[in-house]
C-alpha cells in the first residue's frame, strides 16, 4: 500500500484544479460541471464547492451523470444504477466531465455517449483527480489532472474520502 496523495496534498490538488478551471474565464455562464456517478461525484462535489468559493458571485451549473445504461460490459456484470440529475440544458455549453480515477477510459467513453442524449455541447473537457497513465484502452486523455501516476494492471487506485487520501494498493 502506497499513499499517493496525503489529506493535505489532496486538498491542494482540488484547490489547484478549481483555480485552473476558472482562471481562463471571466464568466462561468457557458460552463457546466458534471460529476460521474458514483465515485466521481464525491470528487466533483468538493471541486464544485471550491469553485463556488473562489467565484462566489457566479452561478455554477452542476449536475451528476450515471453511465450504467451506457456501459459496454453489462453482460459481464450488472452495476447498480444511480441517479442522473442534469436539470439544465447542455446545448452549446462547455461541459467539464469530472471523475476520480481515469484508468481504461471506458467510463469516459460511456459518459460521452450519455451526454449526447442531453444535447450537443460546444465542447467537452475531462477533469480527473488521478490519471493512471499507460493503462488506457481507448484514446482518451484528461484536460485537467490532479496527479498522474504509473501503475500496473494488478494494482488498484482508490480515493478514500473518509481518510481524505489517495491510495495505491
Amino acid at each position, binding site marked *: 500500500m502506497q499513499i499517493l496523495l496525503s489529506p493535505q496534498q489532496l486538498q491542494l490538488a482540488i484547490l489547484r484544479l478549481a483555480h485552473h478551471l476558472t482562471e481562463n474565464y471571466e464568466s462561468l455562464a457557458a460552463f457546466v460541471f458534471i460529476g460521474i456517478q458514483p465515485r466521481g461525484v464525491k470528487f466533483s462535489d468538493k471541486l464544485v464547492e471550491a469553485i463556488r468559493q473562489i467565484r462566489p458571485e457566479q452561478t455554477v451549473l452542476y449536475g451528476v451523470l*450515471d453511465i*450504467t*445504461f*451506457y456501459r459496454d460490459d*453489462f*453482460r*459481464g*456484470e*450488472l*452495476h*447498480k*444504477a*444511480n*441517479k*442522473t*440529475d442534469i436539470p439544465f440544458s447542455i446545448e452549446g455549453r462547455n461541459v467539464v466531465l469530472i471523475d476520480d480515477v481515469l484508468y481504461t477510459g471506458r467510463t469516459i467513453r460511456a459518459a460521452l*455517449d*450519455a451526454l*449526447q*442524449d*442531453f*444535447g450537443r455541447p460546444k465542447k467537452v473537457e475531462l477533469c480527473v483527480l488521478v490519471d493512471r497513465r499507460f493503462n488506457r484502452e481507448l484514446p482518451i486523455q484528461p484536460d485537467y489532472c490532479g496527479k498522474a501516476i504509473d501503475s500496473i494492471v494488478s494494482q488498484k487506485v482508490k480515493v478514500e474520502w473518509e481518510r481524505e487520501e489517495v491510495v495505491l494498493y
Partner: protein
Amino acid sequence: MQLSTNHLLGIKELSIEDISLILSTAQQFKEVLQRPIKKVPSLRDVTIVNLFYENSTRTRISFELAEKRLSADTINFAASGSSVSKGETLLDTVNNILSMKVDMVVMRHSASGAPHFLSKHLPHTAIINAGDGINEHPTQALLDAFSIIEHAGTLDGKKVVIIGDIMHSRVALSNIYLLKKMGAEVMLAGPPTLIPTYVKEAFGVRVEYNLKKALQWCDVANVLRIQLERQNQVLFSSLREYNLAYGVTRKLLEELDKEILIMHPGPVNRGVEIDSDVADSRQSIILQQVENGVAIRMAVLYLLAGKKEG
C-alpha cells in the same frame, strides 16, 4: 447485484431483494424517460419477441416502448393470423422463433402457467410473463407498487384494498404476492361470488364485502376491471347492480374522512367499477401507472438481459 431468477414468471417466484432491485432500477429509467432523448443503448444487441396469444393494448405497447427505449430489436407476434391457427403447438412456435436467434420472450397467454411451461423447456432464454390466464401479471403489480411508493413513500405498513373480480384477476394475485412481501396490509373487497373463500388463510389478507367500510380502512384503492370476457357463469346479476353496490363513486369518496389514492390497471369500464369523475380526479393516478409501466418493463428487461450470460 443481479436478480435471483432467469425469468419473470410471477411475483411469487421473486425475492424481496429482487423486487427492490427492479423498483430502484425503474427509478433510474424513469429519469431516462424524461430526457430530451428518451433512449439508452443498453440492449443494442438483444432481440426480443413479443408473443401475444391474447389481446392487449397497454401491456403490448408498454413492452414494445420499453424495448425500443433500451435499443433492443423487437418482433411482434399475434396468435391470430399466425401458424397457431394451423395447429402449431406453443413450444414449436417458440422454438422456431428462437432458432432465428431471438434472445428473450415476452409472452401473454390465456392459459395459466404457459410461461412456466416454456421456462422449463427453455431454461436459457429469458421468459417474461405479460399475463397468464388467471394466474399472474407481474409487471402490472410492479408498476402498481412503484406508483404507490412514488406517492406514499413506502409500501411498508400501507393499507391497500383491491376491489372487484378477485377470482378472475391476475392483477389481483400478483398484487397480493407483492404487497404482502413488501410489508403492506392487503384487503380484498367485492361481491362474495367474486372472492374465493380460501384467500383469507392462503394469503393472510382481509376480506370485506362492504365497499364503504373497505374504502374507510384503506390508504390506496386499486379498482379492478370487471372482465366481461371472463364471466362465463353469472356471478352478479347486472353491470348496473354491480355499479350500485361496488362502483367507486365521488359520493362515496366524499364521505370518507381522508383522501385515498385511486388506482386502476385499465382498461376502465366507466360507470361500472369506477365513475368517470373519480377516474379523472386529482386523487386518481391511473395515467401515472401507465407512464410508470414503461420504466418498470425497461428495468425488468435490462436486469434479465444482463443476466443472460452471467
